[in-house]
């Protein structure tokens, strides 16, 4: 399990390759990368976070994904600070014996990270700056993971 919160850029391909390399125990690797989308004149984005709580919450989410889906390994990298369109904001990677668990774990990580990890996006464009509003759908997405 590898959790990194950093201002510095990272190389998604290199990280995905290193995560998968020589892994004889896992049949399935799933990765997700979030990219700053050029949505109608976005100049840049500022990602604020809560140092300390960010790492704690990501570790909790990753540990829960590992337990639920029997992961052999998982990786979360999330940037903060200033980002421009085309830059990679964050990535997750999961390794499991079979594909269903690797996919479910990556989606679980993303759903919880979206609504439970303390990051806030502010977008800067031609019309000024605005905080991104949380989507109801992101909170609703957690419902599908509730266990009886």
């Amino acid at each position, binding site marked *: 399990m590898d959790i990194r919160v950093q201002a510095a850029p990272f190389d998604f391909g290199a990280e995905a390759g290193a995560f998968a390399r020589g892994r004889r125990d896992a049949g399935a690797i799933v990765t997700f990368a979030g990219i700053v989308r050029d949505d109608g004149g976005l100049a840049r984005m500022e990602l604020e976070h809560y140092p300390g709580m960010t790492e704690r919450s990501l570790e909790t989410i990753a540990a829960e994904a590992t337990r639920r889906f029997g992961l052999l390994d998982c990786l979360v990298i999330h940037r903060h600070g200033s980002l421009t369109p085309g830059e990679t904001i964050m990535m997750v990677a999961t390794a499991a014996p079979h594909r269903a668990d690797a996919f479910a774990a990556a989606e679980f990580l993303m759903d919880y990270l*979206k609504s*439970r990890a303390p990051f806030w996006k502010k977008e800067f464009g031609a019309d000024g700056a605005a905080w991104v509003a949380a989507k109801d759908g992101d909170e609703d997405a957690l419902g599908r993971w509730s266990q009886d």
Partner: protein
Amino acid sequence: MIDVLYFAWVRERIGLPKERIETAAPTVAALVEELSAREDRYAAAFADLSALRVAVDQDLADFDAPLVGVREVAFFPPMTGG
């Protein structure tokens, strides 16, 4: 003494990221009332609690969470990472 942290537009509205507060408030909600009574910028930031989230010692909590023994409380809008 308790550290109170603000993030995103809560931080902007209150005008600072962090302050130490001497309080006897027994719960987060009581602390919010105390701050809101103090100055308009707090009242403006805390006007709609349904638009806010709170963390107590870096764990997400409810507004009725007790503050006994707590070192750090943070207020912020719903998260938008990922």
